[in-house]
């Protein structure tokens, strides 16, 4: 660990104090949910060597560069930094020799949310956006473990056998093939070299590889879907892990009620219970109201525009009971349809009725953009989904 201060005994004590302050900061970040390893903290310490340890702005930016590796984590970092270094009673205040001027400058330049948790922000926006009063944004953590163990175990057994295989597409990569359109110059010449440079007796070929399209699951976890959402999440977890084990395509999972939450990373845990708990903690609007339009819109804007859905198969599980403006949903669906390859909609209310006609406004608006409508209300229908998915070319 480089010594940021000096080598005299008094300086060394100060350096020790400084190190422990930064270590403490790392611990706080970890407690707030960021993945900060010991190596990252060491980088942080090393990063402070060429900088000024008494300057809070340097402390801030060095930490941002070394401890945060995702844009989504930045608000959490900002909050913890504010609490730890800037707050009057913050742990670093007594330990660190920081000029009052530096604190004032840092407070002015960094727009930190102070001690308010970042979750508050969307709530403040709500009236501005004209969210409807009837929307109950139930900010409670719904536990998945309330499901009876037998029920879960049975579901898990059956679901792990299910494989979601999206259709394939051709990629730019090629592979050797017995017959193909492109000659494999490399292999042909290699063969010729083996014959001491004689002209090759046989021409080798390559053809384009195929690859699984990405699969994007968008699950409705609002109040009207309570009975199904738990199964759907379990299903999403299985789908994600099956894909990972088989090293097949990419699976992304999103949840929405009154707003969209990405839970792909939360579902990463191998153990189903841990993964679902983790997901439940992230999804703030469990069993709340539904705003499909804005949620799909956000999916298209923040994730789809970046290319996450491009050429993929999007599976939306929802009953289409939208409290929002149908216009928004129509526009968002149109955009999504243009962006992805196919849209599959699972509507549990469809049930086994083959003559099902969408009755909710949301479903009617979305219908023109849906390529396949299934029910998804029981395991059999989920199996049907797994069966039809590879044929959606």
């Amino acid at each position: 660990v480089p010594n940021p201060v000096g080598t005299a005994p008094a300086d060394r004590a100060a350096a020790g104090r400084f190190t422990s302050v930064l270590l403490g900061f790392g611990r706080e970040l970890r407690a707030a949910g960021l993945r900060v390893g010991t190596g990252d903290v060491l980088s942080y310490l090393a990063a402070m060597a060429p900088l000024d340890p008494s300057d809070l702005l340097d402390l801030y930016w060095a930490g941002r560069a070394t401890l945060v590796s995702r844009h989504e984590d930045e608000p959490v970092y900002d909050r913890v930094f504010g609490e730890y270094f800037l707050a009057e009673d913050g742990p670093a205040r007594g330990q660190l020799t920081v000029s009052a001027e530096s604190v004032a400058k840092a407070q002015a330049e960094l727009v930190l949310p102070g001690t308010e948790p970042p979750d508050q922000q969307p709530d403040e926006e709500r009236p501005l956006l004209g969210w409807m009063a009837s929307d109950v944004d139930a900010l409670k953590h719904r536990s998945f473990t309330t499901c009876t163990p037998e029920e879960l175990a049975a579901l898990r057994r059956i679901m792990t056998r299910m494989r979601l295989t999206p259709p394939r597409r051709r990629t730019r990569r090629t592979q050797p093939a017995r017959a193909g359109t492109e000659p494999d110059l490399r292999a042909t010449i290699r063969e010729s070299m083996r014959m001491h440079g004689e002209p090759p007796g046989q021409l080798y070929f390559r053809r384009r590889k195929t690859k699984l399209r990405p699969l994007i699951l968008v699950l409705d976890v609002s109040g009207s879907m309570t009975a199904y959402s738990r199964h759907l999440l379990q299903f999403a977890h299985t789908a994600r892990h099956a894909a990972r084990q088989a090293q097949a395509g990419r699976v992304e999972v999103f949840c929405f009620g009154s707003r969209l939450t990405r839970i792909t990373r939360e579902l990463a845990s191998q153990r189903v219970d841990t993964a679902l708990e983790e997901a439940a903690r992230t999804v703030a609007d469990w069993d709340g109201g539904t705003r499909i339009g804005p949620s799909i819109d956000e999916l298209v804007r923040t994730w789809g525009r970046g290319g996450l859905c491009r050429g993929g198969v999007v599976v939306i599980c929802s009953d289409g009971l939208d409290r929002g403006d149908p216009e928004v949903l129509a526009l968002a669906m149109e955009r999504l349809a243009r962006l992805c390859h196919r849209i599959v909609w699972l509507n549990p209310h469809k049930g086994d009725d083959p003559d099902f006609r969408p009755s909710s406004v949301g479903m009617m608006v979305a219908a023109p953009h849906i390529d396949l409508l299934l029910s998804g209300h029981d395991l059999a229908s989920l199996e049907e989904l797994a069966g039809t998915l590879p044929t959606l070319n």
Partner: protein
Amino acid sequence: VEYPATVAELTRHLRDGGYLADRGLATTLLLSLSLRRPVLLEGEVGVGKTEVAKVLAAVFGRRLIRLQCYEGITTSQALYEWDYARQMLQIRALSAAQASEAAQAAEEPSIDQLFGPKFLLERPLLEAVRQGDRAVLLIDEVDRADDEFEAFLLEVLSDFQISIPEVGTIKADSSPVVILTSNRTRELHDALRRRCLYHWIGYPTAEREAEIVAVREPGAAGQLTGKVVAAVQRLRELDLAKPPGVAETIDWVRTLGVLGQTELTADAARDTLGAVVKDRDDLDLVQDNLAEIISGA
């Protein structure tokens, strides 16, 4: 030119090169220079991620080596490849020489030469390893390459050495500055993120954007720039599918300049809107609100 030792100095150098870096970006770059760790830059489209590497190379007299990632990029396109056609010709030439006279003694070295540097086609990564500190390596849009390529990249970035079976191991005497950019079309692996310093480049504030335009388009009138920047800032607040980046702002100012406009009038804006808004739905939305967007600007 030596790399600077303080944030202020680095900021000044970058500014001389026509790039305005804020405190966060400058600090991250300085750390990358002193710790010799790659920087991963993410951010909205058109905020100058690629530009950072270009300016860094230009200002400090380094060679810019660019590896543009795309789907299906293979190691032979990133590392090295043998020049098969030349090897082939060499073999034919050798055997012809052999037939005419007994040059058996010279045969051994000629075969060795076949896998010598003459027949090695250097691709960006090998070139960067050879150049070491004399280069800035830009790995652009790393999210477009496939996962497997990322794992390979990780290996190269961790110790900057490349093994070529026929030649041996090539190691960088000092590692080059590496800048990776990503547009987040795909989640990058944690391992790669771990290896890098991370910085998110957001949209600049109005004053800063005006400064950037002034640096990049010195010929533009300050008044026009101010109005364009204000309009673009308002466009970003609007609910657009593709909000304009800084590059679009500069383009717009340049376009207006080419047309000889000194004022951002409704007509001039309507004619040149294609420089900033690049989506049909967005265009409709902006056309409807054009007066509001440019008024008071």
